């Protein structure tokens, strides 16, 4: 993998909020067709880090390279122009708009007179949703009245429709039941096989081991390290998350204490 150009390379990212280092000198990279899990406890800085990539937070310092080229991302529009789509923990849907309205928010299809082409947007929404959630039919009602899984599908559909090359998923299954979680997992595998790079933030260590190729662990704003999933055990990753020690550094007794 290392001889290929990374899809995304973030170098020495720093973000501080009023003297508190939310992200401190963090560097991560992501390759095409790879799922990189970003894990860590609450307040570890995962969300802040990925927000610098999606344009929602401007870093104090650090560089982002997309396909080896320096990228300037200062707002969400810049990020979308680089093919970066983000599915936020809070879903970022306008509750009062319908499904096509949300899918195309900020990038509406228009007729040649610049009027909204609602029929074309509904048509496109139906086509994408057919792939993701074939039973879905309520295209014209406000998304406030849809279930968690349906809303998640809309958020993912938005990314899929706009041909994301880099997909950031912040806790995509946190609000979902087991069946819906499995649906999302299958979707991640499909997208991955299509060569999309996915950064997955998750609290669920089983999800992470199920889906990820590599795992980057953050603790208190710093990167503990990045490991290949196949070379580590769950306990070793837990040790990274909780006490910030890499698999080689951690002692047997510390591992047992964690298990205890």
């Amino acid at each position, binding site marked *: 993998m290392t001889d290929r150009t990374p899809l995304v390379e973030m170098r020495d990212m720093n973000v501080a909020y009023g003297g508190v280092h939310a992200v401190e000198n963090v560097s991560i990279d992501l390759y095409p067709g790879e799922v990189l899990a970003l894990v860590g406890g609450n307040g570890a800085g995962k969300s802040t880090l990925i927000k610098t990539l999606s344009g929602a937070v401007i870093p104090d310092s650090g560089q982002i390279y997309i396909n080896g080229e320096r990228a300037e991302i200062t707002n969400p529009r810049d990020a979308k122009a680089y093919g970066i789509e983000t599915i936020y923990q809070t879903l970022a849907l306008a509750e009062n708009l319908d499904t096509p*309205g949300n899918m195309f928010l900020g990038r509406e299809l228009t007729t040649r007179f610049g009027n*909204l082409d609602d029929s074309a947007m*509904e048509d496109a929404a139906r086509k994408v949703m057919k792939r993701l959630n074939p039973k879905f039919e*309520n295209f014209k009602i406000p998304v*406030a*009245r849809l279930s968690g899984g349906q809303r998640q599908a809309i958020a993912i559909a938005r990314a899929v429709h706009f041909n994301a090359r880099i997909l950031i998923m912040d806790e995509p299954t946190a609000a979902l039941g087991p069946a819906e979680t499995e649906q999302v997992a299958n979707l991640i595998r499909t997208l991955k096989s299509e060569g999309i790079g996915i950064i997955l933030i998750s609290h669920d260590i089983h999800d992470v081991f199920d889906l990820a190729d590599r795992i980057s662990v953050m603790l208190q704003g710093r990167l503990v390290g990045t490991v290949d999933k196949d070379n580590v055990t769950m306990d070793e990753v837990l040790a990274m998350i909780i006490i910030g020690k890499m698999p080689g550094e951690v002692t047997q007794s510390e591992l047992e204490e964690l298990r205890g």
Partner: protein
Amino acid sequence: MSVTEAPPGETQHHEPIRRPRASLTSALRSAEFDLRTLGMVGLLIVIWVGFHIMSGGTFLTPRNLWNLSVQFAPVAIMATGMVLVIVTRNIDLSVGSMMGMVGMAVALLQAEILPNFLGFGHPAIWLIAIGGALVMGGLVGLFQGLIVAYAGVPSFIVTLGGLLVWRGVAWSLSSGRTVAPMDSTFQLLGGGSRGSLGEVGSWIVGVLACLGIVAILLYDRRQRRRYGFRLRPTWAMVTLAVVGSAAVLGAVWVMNSYYLPENVAMQVAQEQGIPWPEGGLKIPMGISYPVLIAIGVMLVMGFVANERRFGRYVYSIGGNPEASELSGINTRWTIAKTFMTMGILVGVAAVVTVARLNAATSGLGTLAELYVIAAAVIGGTSLAGGLGTIPGAVLGALVMQSLQSGMVLMKVDAPLQDIVVGIVLVVAVAVDVVYRKRAAQ
């Protein structure tokens, strides 16, 4: 399909007990009739018939309805803009004072300033005056909007300040004098005895409106067929076309059943060289210009709200400001633009009102903000943001004006009128809150 369209709570849970009602509801829903709007129309009919009976048959007369339509126009015009402002979770308390200031400026412009350069009655005066009103309103609105959007001062405070400031400016402009008279062409916009389309013009507008309704329905059907979406049932399309056209033509008929006052009719007869007949001459008024302007504003604003990106963003900001920002929408500029739109509409309303009064006083538009906000809210605009429609607000304005006009007919004292309007506002919103809660479940 029609089963999935209806909210699960209504068709499934109550099915055994309330079947007839549920099936009526779902029939209306599958026809895509808006139940809220139907409710508003129902309320309006109740008010009209109620007043007609209580006032001894004077409410539903061409004369009263014609006057009501002229008086309702300025509030309706401003209410369409207030919807957008409130939908973005803001408020504009300054519209009444702004209307006073713009109205005074427009009056001074045509009564005292422009005649010095152009001479009285110059045909450019009324055009410059109207243009000036729109530009001034737009700039003042934009100024307030920029403070709200970019400086982050709550709109309640910015426009409360505006309420005081613009009223003060209105007074200072003329030192409290009443400025009159207006340019004679400008006066027509107020819908005085000459400010109407007349019989033939009104019927032409009516027929065009009917054709417009049919054209929109057919376009909608064509779009659905093109993409293979579910079509509206034919009965619903025909009902909409027939009821819509009947309402339009009925309104034109009422407007045409109100005649010019005898002295004006006599003047007209003289001008046109028609001999004055024995029993007098009945010249129909037709649709007044303020009403025509209000309808035009409603169509444009409805179009902007539903068919343009700007309108879509207004609603998305009201629904979820953060999501809108993350979607790459320039939320601040969008909010500033809603205030600018509001300001332009205040300019339109100021023109209509000053033209109707044929004068501007420094008190012009006092308390108008409350009527405008009330119209929007009664029309279904939620102060929590994200919800509200332009036609709803216009209906709301009609409800407000009907109440007021009905009470005047019944010779209710002014203080009691205020009490009734205040109570109706609170009750209307309370009913709406309950309705929405039940609809959300």
